C-alpha cells in the first residue's frame, strides 16, 4: 500500500514536472499541445474513492494551472476527466474482478482496454479543456481541430510512456 502511494507520488511529481517544463513548450503551432500529465489521474488505483479521486484530480489540475497561469481551467478539465474515468470504469469493469488498489496500466490490463481507456478519456479531457480555454463556440471547427490533434499527440505520448514503463502482469 505504501509502495502504491510512493509510486503515485513519484508519478505525480515526474508527470507534472515533465508537463510544465517540457510539454508546455512542445506543440505543433497552436494546434496540438499535449497534456500527458493526465496519465497520473488515469493510473490512480481502480478502487479509489470517488471523493479522493476528485480531490486529487482537482489538486493536480490546480498545480498544472499554477504553472500555466490559467487558474481553474486545467482543474476543471481534470475533474471532468475524473468523472469520465468513474463512468468509463463503471461501464467496462466489474470492480470485484480487480483488486481495488490495482493500477490500470498496460501490462496489468489488456492493451485494447487500456488504449480505449486512454483515447476516450483524453478526448473528453481535451474537449473540456479547450472549450473552457476558448470559452466560445465561435470558430468551433478550429477548436475541434485543436482538440483532435492535441488528443492524438497526448495519446501517443502516453502510449510511449506506458511502453517505457511496461511491466508484465505480476501474479
Amino acid at each position, binding site marked *: 500500500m505504501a509502495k502504491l502511494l510512493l509510486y503515485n507520488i513519484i508519478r505525480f511529481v515526474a508527470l507534472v514536472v515533465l508537463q510544465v517544463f517540457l510539454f508546455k513548450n512542445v506543440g505543433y503551432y497552436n494546434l496540438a499541445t499535449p497534456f500527458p500529465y493526465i496519465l497520473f489521474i488515469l493510473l490512480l488505483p481502480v478502487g479509489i474513492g470517488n*471523493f479522493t479521486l476528485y480531490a486529487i484530480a*482537482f489538486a493536480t489540475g490546480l498545480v498544472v494551472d499554477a504553472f500555466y497561469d490559467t*487558474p*481553474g*481551467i486545467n482543474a476543471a478539465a481534470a475533474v471532468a476527466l475524473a*468523472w469520465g474515468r*468513474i463512468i468509463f470504469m463503471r461501464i467496462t469493469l466489474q470492480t470485484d474482478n480487480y483488486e481495488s488498489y490495482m493500477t490500470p496500466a498496460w501490462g496489468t490490463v489488456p492493451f485494447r482496454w487500456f488504449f480505449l481507456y486512454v483515447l476516450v478519456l483524453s478526448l473528453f479531457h481535451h474537449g473540456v479543456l479547450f472549450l473552457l480555454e476558448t470559452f466560445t463556440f465561435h470558430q468551433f471547427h478550429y477548436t475541434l481541430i485543436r482538440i483532435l490533434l492535441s488528443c492524438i499527440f497526448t495519446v501517443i505520448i502516453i502510449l510511449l510512456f506506458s511502453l517505457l514503463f511496461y511491466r508484465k502482469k505480476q501474479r
Partner: protein
Amino acid sequence: MKNLWILIHKYNAFFLFILFFGLSCYLVVKNNTFQRASAVNSSNYFVGTVYAWVNGWKSYLHLSESNTRLAEENASLREQLQRFTHADSVERVTVVDSARQVQYNYIVARVTNNSIHQKNNYITIDKGRKHGIRKGMGVIGAKGIVGIVLNVSEHFSTIQSLLHSESRISASLEDSQAFGSLVWGDSYDARYAALRDIPNHVKVRDGERVYTSGYSLFPPGIEIGKVAGSGSSGGDSFLDIRVELSTPFHNLLQVYVVEDVFAEEKAALEALTDKDG
C-alpha cells in the same frame, strides 16, 4: 431527507463532479479576464434576449395603440415628404448669342401635366414665378418648340401648348428664309401643324426644315419641324403648308423655359411704334 442522502450517495460521482467542476469553473471565471468578460457578456446577452422576448410579447398588448400612432406619424411624414419632393432648385443655362448680343436664359422644368387630344391643349410645369418664369415666355423642348407660358403661379406655370387653336408662332423656311405664322389651327393631329402667310411665289419643297424666325419670343433657329406637304388654297395669295412637328408632344417630360433678357426692352420699343402708328 434520508432518501435524498441515499440518492446523493448513489450518484455521488455525478454530484461530486458537479461540486468540483463548479468550483473549477468558479476559479476559471474569477481569475481569467477573458472568460470573466465573456461570462458577464453572455449573461448580459442572456438577460437581453429574455428582455427582448418578453417585450416582443408585451408589444402585442399595445398593438392597436401603436398602430394609431404609426398612422399619425405616417401622415405627418407624408406631409413633410411632400414639402421636400417639390424640387425647389432651379437650373439655369445661359446662352450667349454673340452675333446679336442677345441673351437667352433657359430654365429647366419638368412637365407635370400635359394634354394633346383637346382643341386647346395646355401643359403644366413644376416651375413658377419663384423660379423666374413670367407670362409670355417661350417654352421649348429638346427637339423643338413646345408653347408659350400662359399663367404663372408661385410654383407652377401653365403653358399654352403649340397644340392650341390660338397659338401663333413666327416661323421661317430653311431655304427661302420666308417667314410666316405657324398655327395648329383646325388640325386635330398632334404631329402636324400649319404654316400660314407664306406668299404664293415662294418655292417650298417637301422635307424642308422650318425654324423659329426670331421675331417672336423664341430664339431664332430653333427647329419646329419639316414641311410635309404644301399647296395653294383656292383664290388665296398664300400657300397652305403642312408642317410635321419635331416635338413629341405625347411624351413630353422636360422642357426649357426661354427667358429673353431683352424682351422688355424690345416690347417697350415696339410699343412706341404702335403709339406712333
